[in-house]
């Protein structure tokens, strides 16, 4: 039996092809449109014909879904004016021509510094457009398993989604470990300690905290199956009302009150009786997490 292709190693286009039913993908403003970033060009930096993001629609298990996939290999999947506008436009389209769901393959360190102001505004516009799609009844599902993870503004966007499917290799946070180390020192966060980085930002700890709703193995088939399961379960957008947000508020207040010494996912796993969480296979981890929850 051949091993299913790694999600982490795949390009954005390979991810889209691997997630959707064969031959169903239609891209909007694709590479042929040559919508490149004039701001990168002005700084003499390389451009990409799709500005690092693929948007379009296709079928997944026969259902029409809108897909957005960021290319982590181009500028770390960072959001610039054109890249952000394509994502925003896709969410607006979800309101005018409703798909069953939006599948959002996030692979991004956040704002693209070469066009930082435009990127920041673009992410704000994406947040508002995403809210509008959810209000229109379209669920948005984030897949986080690329090499750049979901950080900065895209870390916030990921947590606005109705489901977050992660692999153990995926990472989710706000400030990257390198930024924290640079500003606060290596004692605060040693960005070269990869195991520590994963115990703070990785898929298993995010699943433990309930932020990732699903933890899957690092392969395209597993990610596709997770989305198929969401479709089959008839998942709609998670409603948010004053009552549900007050409940979230109480949950988050309880977490912030955890003792100040808690700075490593391992401490949390020790407390939960999952001391060897980092070593477990995904399936075993999911089973054990369910047992202790």
């Amino acid at each position, binding site marked *: 039996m051949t091993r299913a292709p790694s999600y982490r190693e795949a390009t954005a286009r390979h991810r889209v092809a691997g997630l959707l039913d064969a031959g169903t993908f239609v891209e909007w403003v694709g590479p042929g449109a040559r919508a490149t970033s004039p*701001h990168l060009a002005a700084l003499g930096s390389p451009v990409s014909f799709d500005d690092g993001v693929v948007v379009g629609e296709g079928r997944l298990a026969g259902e029409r879904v809108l897909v957005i996939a960021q290319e982590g290999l181009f500028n770390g999947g960072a959001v610039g004016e054109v890249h952000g506008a394509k994502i925003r436009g896709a969410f*607006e389209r979800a309101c005018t021509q409703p798909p069953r769901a939006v599948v959002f393959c996030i692979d991004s360190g956040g704002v693209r510094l070469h066009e930082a102001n435009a990127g920041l*505004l673009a992410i704000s516009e994406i947040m508002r457009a995403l809210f509008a799609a959810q209000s229109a009844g379209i669920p948005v599902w984030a897949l986080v398993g690329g090499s750049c993870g979901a950080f900065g503004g895209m870390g916030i966007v990921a947590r606005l989604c109705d489901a977050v499917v992660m692999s153990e290799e995926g990472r989710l946070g706000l400030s990257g470990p390198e930024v924290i180390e640079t500003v606060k020192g290596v004692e605060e966060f040693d960005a070269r300690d990869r195991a520590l980085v994963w115990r*703070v930002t990785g898929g298993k700890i995010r699943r433990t905290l309930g932020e990732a709703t699903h933890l899957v193995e690092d392969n395209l088939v597993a990610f596709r199956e997770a989305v198929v399961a969401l479709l089959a379960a008839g998942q709609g957008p998670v409603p948010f009302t004053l009552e549900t947000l007050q409940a979230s508020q109480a949950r988050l207040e309880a977490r912030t009150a955890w003792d100040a010494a808690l700075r490593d996912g391992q401490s949390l796993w020790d407390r939960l009786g999952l001391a060897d969480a980092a070593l477990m296979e995904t399936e075993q981890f999911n089973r054990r997490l369910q047992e202790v929850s």
Partner: protein
Amino acid sequence: MRDDKSALFARLFPAGHDVTCEAQVLQGWGDAGDGRVHVVGTTDHAAIDTRIALDLARAVLAAVAQDGGGAPRPIVFIADTQGQALSRREELLGLNGYFAHLARCVHLARQQGHRLVTLIDGEAVSGGFLAFGLLGDAIVALPGAEVRVMDLRAMARITRIPLERLTELAHTSPVFAPGAENYWRMGGIHALWAPQEDRGAALRALCAEAGTEDQRARLGAERGGRRLALAIARQVRDAA
């Protein structure tokens, strides 16, 4: 409360106000002359951590709950943040998720009919600005306000583009260099208030005019600072 914030509230709300400041979080009400509005915000260039994000979210939810069943009053956000807190513990807790929660609370307030007006007084930086002030229906920079993602020195270091090149290009392009004026040109800030303006009258006008549609990309195109955002989004939305 810092003197500069007290002075700001005195000018904004000549008809009275009661805003408290606790651990860098502002909360209360003010009256610019046509009834009370809610006031929620931060001061002293706050680094937004999970605690501040929760305090802000709680204040927004309280405003929504208070006006439930009656007429929703505007919420005036005071943005003064140096960005998000940089800490391993905060990352472990999932600071991005707290920011997402705050953003949802702000969106709920909009849906419930509260007009949201953001006044940038001090600094508005990156993540701390995204989850809160940048979600306003109308965003205004007060004189001296600093708006940015990153200063040019740090940007030069990370992108490995010479500082001189960045400084030179910043004269003609608003897309990367810090500055409220640059954000105005790109449509991200609706108005820049002049030093001598009647703040109460300006705030009343803002609360009355603010619409709930996101017009920033259109404004950016009109003002020439962001020419592609609207056009590309339309192309995707309307592609055959």
